[in-house]
């Protein structure tokens, strides 16, 4: 019988396609969360009102900020989820090694971020539609986005979601190293949030580095570079992991 030889590239491709099927469940939770966020946004995220004499104007602000926020939370937990034993083991029922499994997961996180970012942005139209059905007047037409602006916005949203997703993937991978880390890591993170002074210069300069970048392509490079570093670290920590325990 001839040995079955498969190149890493071919295998990662097959695993990536398999993941769309095997991990399909994560998109159900994404849709649920985004719908929930839309419902929360339906009343508007901000309001001002003026009235002069018999005329009264109520101005409501609507945005997809809630949806994007929810999606980022989802991206974080989805990435942790796919590093857990039962999801990881799916690969080891078929042909894989740790490298190919991680690469396929990373491709999946990339694609899922694109899907999640696009649906989050597009949810704006759903919010608009709800207002339209309710008979409210839009003011957005007064200041429509150019196509370029729209794409930049969508791309930035996707990058944020990807960034959070990569962070989740690293945390998930580290947690898999030892049982006790399941408790230690969340406690350490929470403790950090309480104790750490976020006005500390280091944090401010880091915030500036990532989020106050005005040149879009530089911002994109910074985020993508960090994402790759996070993924590389994840691969490193999980490359010696024992599976199907």
């Amino acid at each position: 019988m001839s040995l079955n030889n498969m190149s890493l590239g071919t295998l990662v491709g097959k695993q990536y396609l398999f993941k769309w099927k095997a991990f399909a469940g994560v998109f159900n939770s994404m849709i649920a969360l985004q719908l929930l966020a839309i419902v929360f946004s339906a009343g508007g995220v901000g309001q001002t009102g003026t009235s002069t004499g018999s005329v009264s104007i109520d101005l409501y602000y609507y945005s997809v900020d809630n949806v994007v926020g929810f999606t980022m939370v989802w991206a974080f937990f989805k990435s942790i989820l796919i590093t857990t034993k039962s999801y990881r083991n799916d690969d080891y029922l078929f042909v894989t090694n740790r490298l190919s499994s991680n690469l396929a997961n990373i491709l999946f996180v990339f694609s899922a971020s694109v899907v999640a970012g696009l649906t989050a942005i597009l949810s704006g139209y759903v919010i608009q539609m709800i207002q339209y059905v309710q008979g409210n007047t839009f003011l957005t037409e007064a200041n429509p986005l150019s196509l370029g602006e729209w794409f930049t916005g969508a791309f930035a949203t996707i990058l944020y979601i990807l960034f959070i997703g990569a962070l989740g993937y690293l945390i998930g991978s580290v947690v898999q190293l030892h049982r006790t880390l399941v408790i230690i890591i969340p406690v350490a993170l929470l403790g950090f949030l309480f104790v750490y002074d976020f006005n500390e210069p280091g944090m401010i300069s880091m915030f500036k580095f990532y989020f106050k970048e005005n040149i879009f392509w530089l911002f994109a490079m910074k985020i993508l570079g960090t994402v790759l570093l996070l993924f590389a670290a994840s691969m490193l920590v999980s490359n010696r992991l024992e599976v199907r325990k």
Partner: protein
Amino acid sequence: MNVVECEKVTKKQGSVVALNELNIQIKKNTITGLIGRNGAGKTTLLKILAGLWRPTSGHVEVLSVNPFNSLTVSANVAYIDDSMDFPNTLTLSEILQAGKRFYGNWDSQLAERLFEYFSFHPNQLHTHLSKGKASTFNMIFGLAARCEITLFDEPTNGMDASVRKDFNRALLKDYLAYPRTMIISSHHLEELEELLEDILVIKNGKELLHEPIDVIRNYAIGLTGRSELVRQWVTDKQVLYTEEVGANTCYAVVKSEGIPLEKAKQLGMKVTPVSASDVCVYLTNRTTGGIDDVFK
């Protein structure tokens, strides 16, 4: 040619030593029975061979490479156990389709025929299967993958007697058609004994015996007779087991090598064969070697 080589392989899990300087070789295209009590290290050994776990120390080669993290080993070694959690988003027939995409030698026809024979439903989910049904499905998966090496860890768990019989026959027929290396672990030797060419008995993480099955079948004999006669007669022989049966009668199992059977018969002892599975039970049960310990 050996497809598996283990040299002084040790695996520690916390303070427990699962494998203790184990040395084994498995010949290409043989069916080997891996026999041992619960906790003897069968699963640990198979998972190391499949490249899923790392040995703590020692040298392992499967298909001439270190199995841990090896793509060659993953693509050519199927490890089938009863805790295969296939994703819930895939139906049984989709799992088989996925198998076909991943395994180069996958036999769709065999998979489909067995699938139908054991009356599975294509849209069923793996988690909804009963224990026996899940084992049967996993067996189909393992056979259809037609890997150079197939490792079955307690494959017949939960199967009823008739499915077990079908399993044996399916496995053997497929092996005859496509000879390959198989290692089947079990603590019930009798149900798969006839399929085996070799048998590997492990105990406390060490290899105890690795021989062709027929050697084990002739390994020991049972002697029944008056207690003082049997006891006295076996003192200088290798005793595997003794038992008082009825008043003043003793049954002793001794290693058959060098036992003058005719003489035993003439002395009035009844000589009976000991089945391979009983030999394994006695070998793996024995805690100390001396006859005196047994009689204490």
